[in-house]
């Protein structure tokens, strides 16, 4: 190639870099052949501990991963393709996104679904911005019992000061204080764009969603439900309760925890909000010969066409993660998904009983599905001590609510279909031993 270009070395191709800013290499160790690299990577992975009986959820959940999911995800035809700009040779990706949109529309009860969002937090922030664009108002109310990191992320997205995000308090039963919501909505000088509530919320408690939706709509605000997708197999869907937008973390649908991602932000909306939806959308159409085909559509909302007037700067399809969710839902099916959700609920009730038997009781009285907070004296120390017993005792809520005395000694614990009776016995036994020592 050098000969064809009539040059003696590649140096000639870099002479356009001004000498004063030309670098002389990268100071990193030499490369490693595959065998050596595999030893290194195995060594690092082995320094993580994933063998504990885990009751940690708080937005990311350990579930059974059907073997079909990784089998399909490993296919290079999906993994090594890019955004389907050329639909004639991208129908595989396009149809799977369309199927994802269709299945998430079923789950959420809302018809317009985008597969472009990074995770539950980013989807929540985008949904808050949607309510602002759609209503022309600039004030958003969010329950304090939404995943802490989702609220922090939304706050970051709002940091230019044009919009405000206010937190709604919670009641002792763990639900959001809807009287406070009603009062906040009544301030006619500061009309509200959107109201955000979690279902289940960050304490695992089920919120009175129907009343919250009624209050929001009466004040002309949009309602955003922050949901967990597996729960939608058994809980009332956002569409059923009248929500305008549903967002959530798609990780429970066939995606491994991976210490933080890549995940899948779920974002679904009503028909009326279609043009406010950020990110890619795939639609069904026909080709010139009348064959059914799929294509990216409503592109005029997007950054590469509208530039500074786009609905968002999003360029991604989170396509491979959406593919995982699509294969997961296809494999598990409607009855299987219900079994997953109900098994988690049944195991969580067993966990509650086992902990109550050793004197550890719930913090809140509201109904829950598969996650709840318990009060343990000296919770942070107990949590640390239980690691040595092979138990990951959920999340110390003091990490998320350092200023709330009611949660100082609270652990947020969850169960799913992978939780065993042996795990539960180990947890309850270790807590009992620890509390006896402390007493």
């Amino acid at each position, binding site marked *: 190639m050098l000969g064809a270009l009539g040059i003696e070395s590649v140096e000639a191709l870099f002479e356009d*870099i001004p000498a004063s800013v030309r670098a002389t290499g990268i100071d990193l160790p030499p490369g490693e052949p595959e065998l050596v690299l595999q030893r290194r990577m195995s060594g690092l992975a082995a320094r993580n501990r994933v063998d504990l009986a885990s009751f940690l959820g708080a937005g990311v959940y350990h579930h059974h991963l059907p073997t079909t999911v990784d089998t399909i995800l490993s296919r290079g035809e999906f993994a090594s393709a890019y955004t389907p700009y050329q639909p004639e040779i991208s129908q595989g990706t396009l149809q799977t996104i369309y199927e994802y949109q269709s299945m998430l529309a079923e789950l959420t009860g809302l018809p317009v679904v985008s597969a472009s969002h990074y995770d539950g937090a980013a989807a929540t922030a985008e949904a808050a911005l949607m309510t602002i664009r759609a209503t022309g108002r600039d004030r958003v109310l969010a329950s304090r019992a939404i995943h802490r990191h989702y609220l922090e992320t939304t706050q970051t997205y709002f940091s230019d000061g044009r919009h405000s995000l206010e937190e709604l308090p919670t009641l002792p039963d763990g639900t959001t204080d809807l009287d406070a919501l009603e009062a906040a909505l009544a301030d006619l000088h500061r009309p509200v764009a959107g109201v955000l509530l979690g279902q289940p919320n960050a304490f695992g408690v089920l919120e009175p969603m129907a009343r919250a939706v009624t209050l929001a709509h009466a004040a002309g605000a949009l309602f955003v439900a922050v949901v967990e997708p597996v729960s939608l197999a058994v809980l009332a869907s956002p569409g059923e309760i009248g929500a305008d937008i549903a967002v959530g973390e798609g990780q429970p649908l066939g995606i491994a925890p991976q210490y933080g991602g890549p995940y899948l932000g779920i974002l679904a909306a009503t028909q009326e909000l279609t043009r406010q939806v950020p990110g890619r959308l795939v639609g069904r159409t026909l080709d010139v010969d009348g064959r059914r085909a799929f294509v990216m559509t409503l592109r005029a909302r997007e950054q590469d066409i509208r530039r500074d007037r786009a609905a968002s700067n999003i360029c991604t399809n989170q396509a491979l993660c959406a593919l995982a969710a699509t294969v997961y839902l296809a494999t598990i099916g409607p009855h299987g998904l219900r079994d997953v959700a109900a098994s988690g609920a049944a195991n969580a009730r067993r966990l509650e009983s086992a902990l109550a038997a050793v004197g550890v009781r719930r913090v809140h009285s509201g109904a829950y599905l598969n996650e709840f907070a318990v009060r343990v004296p000296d919770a942070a120390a107990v949590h640390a001590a239980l690691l040595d017993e092979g138990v990951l005792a959920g999340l110390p809520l003091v990490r998320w609510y350092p200023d709330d005395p009611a949660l100082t000694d609270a652990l947020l614990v969850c169960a799913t279909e992978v939780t065993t009776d042996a795990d539960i016995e180990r947890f309850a036994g270790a807590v009992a031993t620890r509390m006896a020592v402390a007493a």
Partner: protein
Amino acid sequence: MTTLQARPTDVGLSERDTPEGSLGPRRAVGASLQPTLAELSVPGRHSDQVPHPPADALAGIPADQLRGSALGLPEVSEPQVIRHFTNLSHLNYSVDGGFYPLGSCTMKHNPRVNEWSARLPGFANLHPLAPDALAQGSLQLLWELQGMLSEIAGMHATTLQPAAGAHGELTGILLIRAYHHSRGDTARDEVIVPDSSHGTNPATASMAGFKTVTVKSAPDGGVDLDALRAALGPRTAAVMLTNPSTLGLFERRIVELLDATHAAGALAYMDGANMNAILGRFKPGAAGFDVMHFNLHKTFSTPHGGGGPGAGPVAVNELLAPFLPGPLAMRGADGSFRLEVTGARPTSIGRMRAYQGSVGVLVRAYAYIRTHGGAGLRLVSDDAVLAANYLRQRVGEAYELPFPGPCKHEFVATAKPLREATGVRTLDVAKRLIDHGFHPPTIYFPLLVEECLLIEPTETETLEDLDAFADALLAVHREAHERPDLLHGAPLTTPVRRLDEATAARHPELKWRPMTGAQTPCPQ
């Protein structure tokens, strides 16, 4: 009425117009369209995945909180699942299947040892909120990767949190605002972008509440220095530059551009989408950029995944480091690793997402950097730039090259003379390339070159592959003169042909018709 079967075309073209080589016709992708899962669904079909729960599992849930509507998901067997998605995969063009010269996207080979690494159970099954004591391996990897990317960028510190390039841009612009505000400098409400920029740059500026000011390019393709100077002022917060530019050209006036930016009190953001050209040759931080993002799915070989997930780490100099989003990975004096505690740095702009990063992607990029090492990464760019210049020369045999070389990792060609001579547009050239078995280059971007093709071969293609693609592009040029109808009707060999995108946008059909419950599958 729709059909899954091929129909005789009505445009006077046939399979005989398929280009043929010594191995017979070359097809870009497989041929059979697939029904949807909804169409495959038959009540009762399933695979046993989890045990059934007890009948009273939901007894604790108030009735009005339970789902009232049926759950209309498809019911299919495991063999159907595998066959459905395997057959769908055959409809995709991919790097694994062939040369994918999509400019600006760096479609290089995805090494399989990276995939193997990310799937190790210790990495895959670790919960993002796991206590530091359980996460020492991942924390060490993240801490090392922060340092590696800082070294590659010539910067002071790196956050691994951003989930994509555009997310990194937003992070960078928020950092810049935090910096100005920290100095009481709150009047800067403009971000300058060149007219050759990625669409994400102006969209990011708007999203962060800035006004976008666009400056034109000079005839040589670089940013017009005088235009930039005229645009700069006390209201300029940042200048966002892509370097090498989206034309595949290094900004020759980079020193002057950076000086002018800083003289106006603004900061310089580098869109690092094109880092694959300059690893070890240009360190943005050392040259004077204040902040940049990487696209790990471009430069560092993580799979594009059909559009995502990517990752967009952001590297910054000392000025901006205090504002980085948390949590960062830290190493203690005793050699143990930990995640920064939320709120530990009051100057931080806050979180950009739920957790510390797309760690599964970061593991792959780390493996890639370890595989190549410092010298190997420089060789990556050497080979990428060499391949691009070679291909540029070959493509130049027939197509106009609007800018002088050398190019960096990609180059622009234009079919404008071809359109004037034959009526064939770049879109037609792209579609006909598919019939020759290739994924087309990026087309109609950047916006400032008419009828443009943006071609990026990457370093992982052989000379034979580069020549085969060049031969195909030249053959299409000949076909445009001899039989322009072939190009207007292309592609002919794909499972679907050109689509009715206007109707799709006018009457969006974004999901299969609602099923009336799991018992009623819905044929379309």
